[in-house]
């Protein structure tokens, strides 16, 4: 679906993770890409205290006609992008529906409760099963591991953006990402971000083809 239209208007995307993972940056990059494509974009973000280890969620509305609420109505998420797997389940429990699509990083960020042994963090397979049951499409990507191989864990967000592109649910492209990224990056930093984006595209396409 790259003909420049939306499958739903407004199309609702939630990008979630834990403070410090770069999801605010990822949502702003995706938003800027869509504004360049001529869409109205609204992004609601919670940051501040939540930078310190708490859940951080950005809700994005994409529309060809107007701005919408920065808080997505419950049960109305079309796409969930999770930098942390447990956060995907939390988001689905509030905003999910049986037609929702999910793109999810596999790397857990343990809460202090888990670190201290007071709480248990479920196995990745259990999380995957839960998300499968709560969504129409569920793409698990080991983005942090791939980002570490590329030299910086923060690239996980860009890999997931590439994966969003790879699923074809939004009218975005590598070229559009390059334009937005080159507003703030150049040289090797820009190149590595482009490689991360391409990797995400490839991983999602492989999954879709499988």
């Amino acid at each position, binding site marked *: 679906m790259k003909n420049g239209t939306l499958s739903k208007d407004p199309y609702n995307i939630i990008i979630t993770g834990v403070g410090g993972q770069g999801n605010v940056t990822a949502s702003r990059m995706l*938003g800027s890409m869509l504004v360049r494509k001529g869409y109205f974009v609204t992004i609601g973000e919670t940051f501040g205290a939540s930078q310190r280890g708490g859940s951080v969620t950005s809700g994005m509305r994409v529309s060809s006609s107007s701005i919408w*609420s920065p808080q997505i109505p419950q049960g109305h998420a079309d796409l969930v992008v999770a930098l942390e797997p447990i956060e995907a389940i939390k988001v689905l429990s509030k905003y999910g529906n049986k037609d929702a699509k999910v793109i999810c990083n596999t790397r857990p960020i*343990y809460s*202090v409760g888990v670190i201290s042994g007071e709480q248990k963090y479920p196995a990745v397979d259990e999380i995957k099963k839960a998300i499968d049951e709560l969504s129409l499409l569920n793409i698990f990507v080991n983005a942090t591991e791939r980002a570490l191989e590329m030299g910086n864990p923060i690239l996980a967000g860009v890999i997931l953006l590439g994966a969003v592109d790879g699923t074809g649910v939004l009218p975005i492209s590598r070229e559009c990402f390059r334009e937005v990224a080159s507003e703030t990056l150049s040289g090797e930093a820009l190149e590595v971000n482009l490689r991360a984006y391409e990797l995400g595209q490839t991983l999602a396409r492989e999954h879709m083809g499988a």
Partner: protein
Amino acid sequence: MSNLADPREGNQYLFMGNEAIARGALEAGIGVAAGYPGTPSSEIVESLARVASDRNIYVEWSVNEKVAMEVAAAASFAGLRSICTMKQNGLNVASDFLLHLVGSGIRGGMLIIACEDPGGLSSQNEGDSRFFARMLEIPMVEPAYFQEAKDLTKWALELSEELKTPVILRSVTRLSHASGNVRLGPLPPPPTKARFEHRGPLLDFMTGPMITGAVVYAHSLVQGKAAKAAERFESAPFNTYQGPEKPELLIITSSSCYLYSREAIRVLEVEDRVGILKLGTTWPLPQKLVKKHLRSTDKVLVVEEVLSFLEDQVKVLAAEVPDEIGIKKFFGKKSGSIPSTNEQNPENVIGALKSILGIEYTAMTPEYSALAEAHVAASSPHRELTFCAGCPHRASFWSIHNALELDGRDGFVCGDVGCYTMAILPTGFGTLKTCHSMGSGTGIASGFGKLGQFGMDQKAVAVCGDSTFFHAVMPALVNAVHHKSDIILVVLDNGGTAMTGFQPHPGLHIGALGSGAQNIDIAKICEAIGAEVEIRDPFDLAATQETLLDMMRRGRGAKVLILRQACALSPEKKRAKLFEMAVDESLCLGEQCGCNRLCTRIFRCPGLLWNSERRKAKLDEVICTGCGVCSQICPAGAISATKKNRQA
């Protein structure tokens, strides 16, 4: 070049609400912007600082909100347009000056931008500062979305200059920290000339002194300006109506609540039954406009946050003119239709519309909802707030906590607003026991320190951040020293205003515009005030704890311990590890450790994990910042810290 100062009219960008406000200020041709950092307001001054040299504007992070407002007022007195920015608490701090400023009036347009935090997402209160506009009788505007944030900032600065009164622009988190499309308007040439005319007659506020004498006369001028503002508001383009000519229900709303209301109407598909009167100008109320819409319906729902502000004004108006508009049924805070605490959201408005209009709607099918809830219950650990990995505060509170325990007099810590507030939680070992406004920990400790005559021997320790020290702690420390109050003030000096994104403060060589600021030494100030001062590195646990205990045990009087170590998120530190950390599994005793996993159970740094399969502590190489502190707390010496060459 930053998109914020893009001179190409008509270009469209994704701007955060705060960037949109900053752009509006540039389009109005401001000369000066001042503020004190506070979520969700900080990005306005930050954005303007980045384009200051291009646009020939002066931008500063002031020592506190009152001084920020004074700095902005000076620009206005000299004929420039100016803004000052703050969060809701800040308007309280600045309100003493504002009360006087309203009386003297202003010259160049001056906008007070209060970014509020309904729901306290990043605050310790959800104060509704709209009441200042009514109390001080100055005009107030409230943008609802991004384009309007830009346009209304410019319009309000022009109105302020025309009426010679400061104007309040009220934003909220869901605008300031949300992002959306903004189409740019033209940029005027940067301002070049400032001059304060003061030789005119005593009561000529345009050429004479700026004073607040002649109270009653000045007050009558204030009310005249408010009346003019009300007239201008009647035709302001920011007050709009959407919906049927004769709606079954009229929603009156402002700010982000407008978007929630629109969303609720769309979700419930009641576009032909419900109309929305959105007010961008909320004090004084544009009465003719509101009356016109009240005539069109019998039922009115007011959607706003946090308190009943618009609702009260609309009801008073309706009570004055029942013969013109008829009798209305009102829904809002008083009827319980809309909660009077917390921020609003589409669900709250959907709930109100369901009950008023008698509509059935559920957001999720019961099957999906039950399944999701089961999965959350089974798999979703709660994320409690924690200090970052490598945060100096964790180390500082470890030492403060231990010193208080060793002192053995049931001592406690009084704090205030900052990341270190989290010391009320397990991440700070539950050490913090009072928490109020900026600097209040020191004032409260000063009071506790004088209760010895009533048999109180508990040790009161105050903590404050370095930025807070300058903002509001200095007078409290003067008070404690002057009255020989028995306190220890611990200044958690992490080299910036870390909580809000690392803005500079007077203790640093840099200001909002970069290098060249004069730094002021906290230790020297404390010494000059007359306190004993020690400086330690909180990462040196033994020395810190020993110093604190010594201070507690020595005689009476105020003492200051400065714990100096940069924030783990500071630009100088980011991703540069001091030490390479490693756990020697052959030495780690795991649960057999005398303290039963002291490191992961009590110290709880996010960079150090409990590997439940191997029953050993384990480092998370992505999260660990290599501060080296955990190697000092391991009783078995199983965690090693090897000095690394620092990398930028």
